[in-house]
């Protein structure tokens, strides 16, 4: 029970981190029609910027400054490179961001090295946020912070801790969701963005600088990715391999429906849970077959496939879901546009 709750929370927090990335990607895609292949690279940049800034000005200012820097880098890229290929169509736009992902990865390795950097959470975020105690004598209970050792030491007591970084991740993601939603629906600039999204020519003839709005949107999307990078950097390991999250977020936005922000939210949570929940289930199809009375042993030619446990198969589950969605609901869960 307690393990299940912790797993569920881990899955939701991973999902929310994915949402921080996929929301920026969706925002850029639905506004400009550009699929930013380098989105995960800005996630990477955010983590490394924050690592360096933490050494200079401390973690909390870095939490603010690193996304801004990543966003500025994104805006600069949009201004100097992406805008040039805009007239060639969507495939060159995708290609140029693909090239950018190579360049950023190499530059990061050039500046910060190829191995991991020690980017630790600040003292305020260290340790568990709360501890779930499954006690043989007292039943199920919850203690904020670290549980006293005497509660966990007795025989039959199981303590499960939920790290503060994960709780922080959830809080930041939800705040960000709220902020983006308020910005888009309640402010003037949000209204201009929405107008430029559907009717760029009309917005332009009303005197709004649509290319600048595009630059702003691209920069903001990259800043969101940078923010996710800071959080991801302290929660996981800060290394060049962080950019490998890219294919997952693409899977997320296809599953959720291209260009749909609620879809990206649903897809992120689904994929987050799908990546995390099966990790503790050490059962395979062989066990399932045995349950229904079909014994598959090592001699059977299907054995190598069927013996893969659910925990081992966890990395491919998001992609399997992607394939299933494409077969049964090609426009994605909450998508509106076909094709």
């Amino acid at each position, binding site marked *: 029970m307690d393990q299940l709750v912790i797993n569920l929370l881990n899955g939701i927090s991973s999902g929310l981190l994915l949402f921080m990335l996929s929301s920026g990607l969706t925002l850029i895609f639905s506004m400009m029609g550009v699929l930013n292949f380098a989105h995960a690279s800005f996630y990477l940049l955010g983590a490394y910027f924050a690592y360096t800034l933490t050494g200079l000005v401390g973690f909390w200012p870095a939490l603010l400054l690193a996304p801004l820097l990543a966003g500025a880098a994104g805006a600069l890229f949009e201004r100097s490179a992406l805008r040039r290929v805009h007239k060639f169509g969507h495939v*060159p736009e995708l290609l140029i961001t693909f090239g950018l992902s190579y*360049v950023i990865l190499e*530059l990061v390795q*050039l500046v910060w090295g*190829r191995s991991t950097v020690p980017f630790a959470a600040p003292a305020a975020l260290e340790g568990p946020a709360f501890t779930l105690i499954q006690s043989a004598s007292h039943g199920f209970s919850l203690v904020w912070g670290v549980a006293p050792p005497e509660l966990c030491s007795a025989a039959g007591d199981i303590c499960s801790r939920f790290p503060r970084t994960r709780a922080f991740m959830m809080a930041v993601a939800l705040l960000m969701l709220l902020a983006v939603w308020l910005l888009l629906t309640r402010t003037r600039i949000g209204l201009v963005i929405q107008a430029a999204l559907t009717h760029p020519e009309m917005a332009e003839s009303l005197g709004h600088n649509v290319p600048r709005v595009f630059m702003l949107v691209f920069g903001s999307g990259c800043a969101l990715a940078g923010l996710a990078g800071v959080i991801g950097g302290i929660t996981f390991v800060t290394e060049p391999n962080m950019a490998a999250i890219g294919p997952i977020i693409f*899977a997320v936005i296809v599953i959720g429906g291209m260009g749909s922000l609620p879809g990206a939210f649903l897809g992120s949570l689904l994929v987050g849970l799908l990546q995390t929940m099966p990790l503790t289930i050490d059962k395979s199809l062989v066990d399932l077959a045995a349950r229904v009375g079909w014994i598959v042993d090592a001699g059977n030619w299907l054995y*190598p496939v069927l013996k*893969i446990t659910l925990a081992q198969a966890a990395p491919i589950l998001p992609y399997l879901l992607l394939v299933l969605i*494409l077969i049964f609901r090609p426009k994605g869960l909450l998508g509106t546009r076909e094709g």
Partner: protein
Amino acid sequence: MAAHSFRFKPWNVGRWLIWGLFALGLAVAPLLWQSGFALTMLSQIGIAIVACLAYNVLLGQGGMLSFGHAVYSGLGSFLAIHTLNMASAGQLALPVSLVPLVGGVAGLFFAALLGYVTTKKAGTTFAMITLGIGELVWSMSLMLPEFFGGEGGVTGNRVVGKPLLGISFGPQIQVYYLIAVYCFVCTVAMFAVTRTPLGRMLNAVRDNPERVEFIGYSTQRVRFIAFMISGFFAGIAGGLGALNFEIVTAEVVGAARSGAYLLFVFLGGATFFFGPIIGAVLMVVALVLLSEWTKAWLLYLGLIFLFMVMYAPGGVASLIMMNLRVAAYGKLRRLWVAYLALAGTSLGVLGGIAVMIEMVYHVQLNPALGPQMTLLGATLDARGLDSWFGAAFVVLISGALFELTRRSFQRQWGDVQEEIEREIKRREALT
């Protein structure tokens, strides 16, 4: 009706000449460069040509941007090497020269299986789905060591049974000629596909899918068939690779390989049929030579790619064709001074930037060796102010000169193009 009418079809000399030269080049290349290293390079180039042309059936002819095409060449490789091992064990009577075809059939099978899902979409969504499928297969390769061989990969031995007519496929030169034959036949076949109604429909699907749907074709089916053709030839390339290296590791299905196909096909030029052949040569040169020379090669590659997308979206092939047009009107002579100036100044810019990048890499990756490094015979102090200042100075000066020459070149180029347009109009008026 049509059968009775007589159409005058002259022998297309140009076409026979080009294909003849291509075949001759494939046949003569190992005689010109005889070292063992050159032979391995040539073999890899032959394989890469098939793979890149197969990729271009999607990218150039179908407008489909795939981020996971290594899946089909890679799975072709794996099935080919397993077939080879079965033939070695005597379980299967199959000549070694047909093993690449097994790879092709495997590529076709998986392209039919996975392509059914991916080709449901076009454009950016298609790109993302291929990326997902690529990751799926890559993760599978780690989970199924029985088939993919785990960390060490699957090894094989291409010498099977008795030599036939003295050909055992043991020496590299014999494998090279097998690759050359496959390369030529596949290139001809893929070129032939572009001339069929299917090939033309594929171009139409690329350019205006809505209109194709209105005429009554299913764009999805055209994409699907093209995808299977591409998968088949990619699988042949994979099978050739398995024979050539005699080892297949999981990285052949990885994202890096898929990315390389995309990068180099684009650099070579996706809009022309022969572009990917240039791209394939560049790919092998970059992967084998450039990665030996410098650790920063991926950075260079990325930067070159960025500039190519921005300034020459047709790749090297389009640059060649543009200059051929100028040459055909006899105006290349006016441009060669500007070309020389451009080449000189850009060499200065690139050289200066490269020196700086190499110095940063040296400081980052070889701190134990001290700040001294040698680059093209010169000893540089990677931490010294003078070498940095020198490099920056060279970049600034040659950058400024480059900008000046570029402006005058652009003017000249514009003039020449205008004259050519006028000349074309004049000739049209005459006929």
